[in-house]
């Protein structure tokens, strides 16, 4: 292929006007607004249903919601979840729930934040939070145990009080967690 080269004038062939133009362009950028985000001080704005660390949540009466059915363990694509099932203590007020996890472990290094565990959970006991900066000094430290997961999850003020109503929520209760426009869960009155 033959490329048509434009005929340059003498001044253009010295490159001097072009270089001066370039220098004007670069100097113009000096006082301009910077794009850098000063990260640790300035956090990024997360979009609506941002999926961060998966955590275990408690219901408004401070009970562990997980009944260790192990569905999340089975659905987890990278096999990051490991559950050791156990039973509720005999004589506990919610003894009829029968099961709860004896140990619940999520390996945050394996987790791919797909959110399948949240989707599959019949008890709505596992939720992806908006935390994205998960760091530790060792691999073991990043295998989050039950205690840690419950701490991160906290109490979730949603409407599924399964054990209270024995499967029948009061009429008019919305199904599932109520979220605001941005996707963050909203506390219910």
């Amino acid at each position, binding site marked *: 292929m033959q490329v048509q080269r434009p005929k340059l004038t003498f001044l253009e062939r010295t490159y001097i006007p072009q*270089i001066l133009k370039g*220098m004007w362009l*670069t*100097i113009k*950028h*000096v*006082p301009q607004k*910077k794009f*850098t985000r000063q990260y640790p001080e300035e956090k990024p704005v997360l979009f609506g249903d941002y999926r961060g660390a998966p955590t275990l949540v408690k219901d408004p009466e401070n009970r562990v919601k997980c009944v260790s059915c192990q569905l999340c363990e089975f659905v987890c694509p990278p096999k990051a979840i490991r559950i050791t099932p156990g039973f509720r203590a005999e004589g506990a007020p919610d003894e009829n729930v029968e099961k709860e996890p004896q140990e619940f472990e999520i390996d945050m290094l394996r987790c791919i934040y797909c959110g399948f565990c949240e989707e599959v959970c019949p008890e709505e006991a596992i939720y992806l939070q908006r935390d994205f900066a998960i760091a530790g000094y060792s691999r073991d430290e990043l295998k989050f145990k039950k205690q840690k997961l419950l701490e991160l999850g906290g109490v979730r003020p949603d409407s599924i009080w399964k054990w209270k109503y024995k499967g029948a929520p009061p009429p008019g209760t919305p199904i599932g967690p109520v979220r605001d426009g941005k996707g963050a869960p909203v506390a219910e009155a």
Partner: protein
Amino acid sequence: MIPTELLIHIIKIAAVIGVMLTIVAYTVMLERWLCAWMQDRVGPNRVGPFGLLQPLADGVKFIFKEDVLPHHIQHKIYFTLAPAITMVPALITIAVVPWGSYLPIFGHNIKGVLADLDVGVLYIFAIASLGVYGIVLAGWASNSKYPFLGGIRSSAQMISYEVCLGLSVVPVFMQVGALNLSRVVEYQAAHTWLVLCQPLSFFIFMVSAFAETNRTPFDLPEAEQELVGGYHTEYSSMKFAMFFLGEYANMFVASAMMVTLFCGGWSLPFAPFNAPATTLVAGLLHIAVFLAKVIFFLFVFVWVRWTVPRFRYDQLMALGWKIFVPLTIVNIFITGVVLMLMGAK
């Protein structure tokens, strides 16, 4: 008891080296800031207020880094010597550059130059050409291909552009009639800045200075993309820092030369800057004016680096030999004719 003369000289040397190295360290800072700002980034801002202590942090880091000596190096002495050879010429050429006119203090009329040599500029060219040995030695002693290519490129480039550099300043000395840099500045203080009389000389000198200091658009010896840093690829820790400082110190000297030869040194075209100082305050102001001009040229060095892309090697050589050398010779001829017609001595 040290004689006063000697003491004055020691203090002067310490002050010059101290100020120079501080400015050199902060040129690195300026480089990083300016490049960041031109790319709409923030730049170093973490160490100290506005990141102003960054050079200090860099220095500490360099000192504590492991000094790696690659196993394939056969001539350890040359390998070790090379950074020093790059650094030293920059530091000793500054001796003949007049920083100010005079500093009248306690009855002593101290000259604003370390060594008031009558061969001034010849001395600078003689010493500055030694700088190329450091780079060539580094490229060769590293015993690895990229540094070697960098060394070859720089030897060819620096030798070529030294010709332009040397020839471009000849008209200046034809006009001034002295090689002593202090006389050159005094001439400019009395008459006019030589950049106005010799714009072509100034332009060629500046471009050649970019090539001599291995700065973009002529940074082929250290082209990061092609040569992985060129001649200093195999260096680490303080040895690398010496190359780094050497490069910026060379920039400082080049800027000081441009200021001295073409932009009036310590002088400005109004009192009290148009005559050698008679009071201490004026003397200090002269030094401040000189440093301000030098810093301006350092700024230009950085500015050009982040604007102009690198030349191709044949373009670089063609520019040097086919354009600048003939131009400088024509310039010398024209200056000679004009001086003869004006009936100068």
